């Protein structure tokens, strides 16, 4: 019998172009959350106040890549996390935000900033502080190497739990018996 590592596993999470639905689902593992906090501790995450990701065992990314800021965060995670996981449809294949991909970017931006009812003299913002959008929304595996994928919109709590416990116990994670869903 192998035992779990004495040291707690450090886990960071982030939401890129996502809706936090996957994070909500993560919290949805209910009573398992208590088991989980016995074996993991959180680094940077919407669940903590830590702003910069540090060296971690596992990184979990929700959402696709839609702007330059997303790229920086994703790369930070890749540099710091031994294992990087794509969580949810948007991270896996771009998801809902990627539905804008067949509309030219200029049209998208003008629609939002110039032609929307109630917007007068609207201009596309050009503040250097703001991240620029990519021409298309991309799944995260097109930007950095991803070790594992958990599809679903959002993936169910039990699916996430099964996946993480497999991973932490050193088994190749599998989603079987109805746990695998793309929707």
């Amino acid at each position, binding site marked *: 019998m192998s035992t779990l590592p004495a040291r707690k596993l450090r886990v960071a999470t982030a939401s890129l172009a996502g809706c936090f639905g996957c994070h909500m689902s993560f919290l949805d593992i209910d009573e398992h959350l208590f088991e989980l906090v016995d074996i993991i501790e959180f680094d940077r995450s919407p669940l903590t106040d830590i702003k910069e990701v540090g060296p971690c065992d596992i990184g979990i990314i929700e959402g696709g890549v839609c702007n330059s800021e997303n790229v920086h965060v994703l790369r930070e995670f890749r*540099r710091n996390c031994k294992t990087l996981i794509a969580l949810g449809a948007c991270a896996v294949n771009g998801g809902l935000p990627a539905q804008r991909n067949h509309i030219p970017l200029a049209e998208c931006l003008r629609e939002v900033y110039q032609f929307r009812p109630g917007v007068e003299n609207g201009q596309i*913002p050009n503040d*250097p502080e703001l*991240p*620029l*959008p990519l021409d298309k929304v991309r799944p995260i595996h097109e930007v950095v190497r991803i070790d594992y994928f958990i599809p679903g919109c959002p993936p169910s709590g039990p699916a996430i739990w099964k996946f993480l416990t497999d991973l932490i116990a050193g088994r190749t994670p599998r989603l079987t018996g109805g746990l695998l869903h793309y929707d």
Partner: protein
Amino acid sequence: MSALPSDESAALDGILQRHRHDPTRLLQILIDAQDIAGWLPAPVLTRIAAGLDIPRARVEGVAGFYSFLYTRPVGRYRVLFSDNITDRMLGNAELLDALCRKLWIEPGKMSEDGLVSVTTTSCTGLCDQGPAMLVNGQAIGQLNHRRINEIAEMIRQQRPLELWPAEFFQVDDNIRLKGALLGLEMAPGEALKAAIARGPEGWLAEMQASNLRGRGGAGFATAVKWASARNAPGELKVIVCNADEGEPGTFKDRVLLNRYADLVFEGMSLAAWAVGAGEGFVYLRGEYRYLRPQLEAVLACRREAGLLGKNILGQPGFDFDIQIHLGAGAYVCGEESALIESLEGKRGTPRIRPPFPVIKGYLGRPTVVNNVETLAKTCLVALHGGADFAATGTAQSAGTKLISISGDCAMPGIYEYPFGAQISRILEDCGASDTQAIQVGGASGICLASYEFQRRIAYEDVPTAGAFMIFDGTRDLFEVARAFIHFFAHESCGFCTPCRVGTSLLKGFMDKLADGHGAKADLNDIDWIDRLLKNASHCGLGSASPNPVIDTLQKFRPAYERRLVSLDFEPAFDLDAALAEARQLTARNDPGAHLKTHEEEEEK
């Protein structure tokens, strides 16, 4: 339904009538109809569908399949630069650029006045006299800046093609070495007389003894093919001459058709005599359309001489005639079952086999498909006997082989060697020096490195349909493979998943490496796609498509490795380029408005 101008409408009716409103002639009808306006407007397709009493969607399906059919407007001068690797090595890109600049147009886009469009096309079979182009279907070789200047000028002046200098359109045969076939001087009908004298069975036995194998690539025993068709149930049988010659770097069939057409047609008649066929087709690739008038003339002479038609050479019941069917820019139509679909006026999609064409081919009839060279060679068997034919070559490869030599050598052209000829000897004969590699058998063939030049041309060693492209020490074998992958991705018919998607993915990976974004992980993905293409493709196009990559990765791996910027992973797309549109929209160019695609360069 939108209306057609009345003169166009009348012309269209004439075409439909000429083709007897026969849906199997759909591709021929579309080719002819396109000559009216230079392209195929939607109402024309509707009219053709009505005239043939077939669904419009089927007409649209066919029109959209072939590269040389246009359902959007193209220039009145349609310039297509041949884009084989040999054309690239001779600087076709620079010439294309120059022409576009002189005409003030962008490649691939029609000029606003509708005068001209310029783009590329797959190998046009003029590799021995490239760089080459097609202008409204007419071939022009030996392009250089002087010719390009003149061409630009004549297009600007809207000078009709007939008034362009005749030497522009001269296509040389470049026969460098003659053997049994190219040296043969035969009066039309002589071989046929000999075969008729033996009777169909006796003639087939002679073919059996010759051990002649197909020259189109697969090397199938010709006599076995003929016998299967002969024995297959069905009254009406068909002989098809495969003159699609789309394999990049191959042009020996062009020379046979240009100078030895009588041998080719005689071979078809010999096949008909053996098989009991009454109907013959030459499937002529669209790129060779300029050969059609002279081929028709030869056919007319043969009819005149009683070598085609009814009771050929006075033999009661030996009725056989040949018609020419044009292709329209689709390499896959060289595959015999796709060819037959195309002959039936459909999209050139390879069929499920079995049944094989010899059992169920054109319109369900037993059909023999043979290569141009195979058919011409049967004349030698008829004249001198099977044993004589089998006496040259090697044990498993009887006779001679025509080789189309191009690339880095002093004397490109056609060479006829007995099978068993050593590669090094061929290289010496054509004046190649400092040879780094050769691609034998075209894009789908094999790439040989210098340590393999002692190998021999033969089915049992280095098989080939005839292409022999030479690359000297200055060439980059990665770019060679990349050019071929572009070719396959462009020519995939799209029927099956692995080839439709796989060739495009492979092209994407090769371009990624070429653009300086390659990583070791990409090489693994390339390997994996190569294997899937080989294993799971529906036809020979897909399964051969990874060959250039597999060979060069094995034999010229550093050509790939020197392009890698990471041992691990690189983004699948150019990150900084993906921000370009947003930069333009916001008029920003500050450091924050950029991304480094290669991560190590980024500030940490």
